[in-house]
């Protein structure tokens, strides 16, 4: 998707994308926002976008590499680009050279950013679950008079045997879904094994 008024910049960008085997579909401020969300890439002219609130929701919903077409170094324009969280930018007036490099770097930045966001989400989830794991371990310590380290190892081994995440097993213990005494046999065996492995 190219969102940019007709003119020299759009012409240069369209031609170069076609050379790269990319099919550009152009929209301008007079267009209706497209329903089809089957785009792989978006190029958004900063000045046109800021003047066209009708497209704001579409731009915010795009989950793909977005490149800003930036015609001004004015900080207000640069701030707007940063706020949009774009993956890259191309300076206007647009020249054929440099578009491919900007495109590749933007796609890489988008994928990296998405992978980082996933990893951060997973880490946040685990961090949040950490309190549950600690609570479950404390219950094992209190019930079976084992050390904290032994309790954590019991949780780890039990979760592997049941093929569920440590955090999920801990949640089951804390919620009472899995009573702590039910771990009795496991605890005896694990302490023995733990002791042996040490």
């Amino acid at each position, binding site marked *: 998707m190219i969102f940019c008024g*007709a*003119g*020299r910049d759009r012409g240069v960008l369209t031609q170069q994308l076609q050379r790269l085997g990319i099919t550009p579909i152009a929209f301008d401020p007079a267009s209706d926002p497209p329903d089809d969300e089957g785009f792989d890439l978006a190029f958004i002219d900063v*000045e046109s976008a*800021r*003047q066209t609130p009708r497209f704001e929701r579409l731009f915010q919903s795009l989950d793909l590499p977005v490149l800003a077409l930036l*015609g*001004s*170094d*004015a*900080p*207000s*324009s640069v*701030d707007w680009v940063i706020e949009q969280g774009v993956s890259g930018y191309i300076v*206007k*007036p647009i020249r054929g050279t440099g578009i491919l490099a900007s495109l590749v770097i933007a796609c890489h930045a988008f994928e990296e950013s998405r992978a980082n966001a996933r990893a951060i989400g997973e880490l946040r989830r685990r961090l949040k679950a950490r309190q549950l794991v600690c609570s479950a371990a404390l219950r094992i310590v209190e019930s079976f008079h084992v050390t904290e380290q032994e309790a954590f190892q019991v949780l780890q081994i039990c979760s592997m045997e049941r093929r569920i995440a440590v955090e999920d097993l801990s949640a089951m213990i804390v919620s009472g879904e899995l009573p702590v005494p039910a771990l009795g046999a496991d605890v005896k065996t694990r302490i023995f094994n733990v002791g042996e492995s040490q």
Partner: protein
Amino acid sequence: MKTPISIGMLFSSEGSYRTVSRAMRDGAMLALEEVNDDSRFDFELRPHVQDPRGVPAAYPECALRLLSDQRIKHVVGCYTSSSRKEIIPSFEKYDALLWYPSHYEGFETNDNVIYTGAAPNHHVLPLMDYVLRYVGRDIYCIGSNYVWAWENNRIVRELTQVNSGRILGERYLQVHDCEVGRIIEEIIERRPSFVLNMLIGESSYAFYRAFAEAREAHPELKDTVIGSCTLCEPELAEIGPAACAGHVSSSVYFSSITTSANRAFVAAYRRRFGANVMPSADAEASYNTIHLLARALAGAEPSDIESVKANLYGATFQAPQGRVSIDSENNHSFLTPRLGVSRSDGTFEIIREWSEPVRPDPYLVWADGSGISTSDGTGGQELNRRPTLRVIR
């Protein structure tokens, strides 16, 4: 026999900002005639006029006619930043110079452009210095929806926040939009001490007229001050005497400057374009541009823009506003900031002026974060005073 040199003129006679653009064209034409009558120059400037009629898409076409078809190397023109940015690639391609005689928002330096209008440290910083010191800190921002207003409003937001002020609202209209009712309603409701008006052309005139009506109906608005970095004499005539008085404008030129150079300029301008018209900052900027161009062309090869620029960097012109020259570091101009308050007769009373030309700072790298000059040491103590708009010499 003088050698002819072709000069392009690229101004719109139609469209939303035609009043300003026509004044720019007139200022350039007056200077061109003066140069041609001046025996010190051994060349004659021949104008080639292109009129994009305020249509953004027409600017590149007009520029190409001048640069490609007529092979002209020097073009004076453009008012809006969007039109300037549209045609810069053509000037790079044909290695020509655009002489851009308009104030603008800054943050640009191009080797193919000479910026003879005011930079942000000539217009918005002096205005806000005055506002935050003497008018108030409750500020409402309006503007035309493009980079001129976006950038100036950003600067004002930052200066206001640094000085513990508040932005009570920020609204934009499309360039041709004159529906100012919602803005007026908000101003009545929020009662800012200062309204920063970055609207251009007809939107701005509609706002001033609507505000005057609102002030009649709502006396509590009598202390609200409107300030602008564009308001000029031909626009006061457009707005009309009932609504044009009492507004602050930040500009490097007002027709009421009392120097002999300006008196001569005003007289010549009125002789040429009518006894009822007044030259504006935009007309003066275009006038200065042609005079600087003539000095740069003297002794240079006109088609070699590097030799023209080398001449230009050493040139000065005793302009109606005072001495003007170009900073070789950024191609912008040394200009003299002033503040004026509009009068119902279509002129401005000058309330502040700098004692000498100020170096251009298009990237605002030398401005301190507060925007308040420390020259008179009054700091923020007088900020609560209502605007008496006294003359400060």
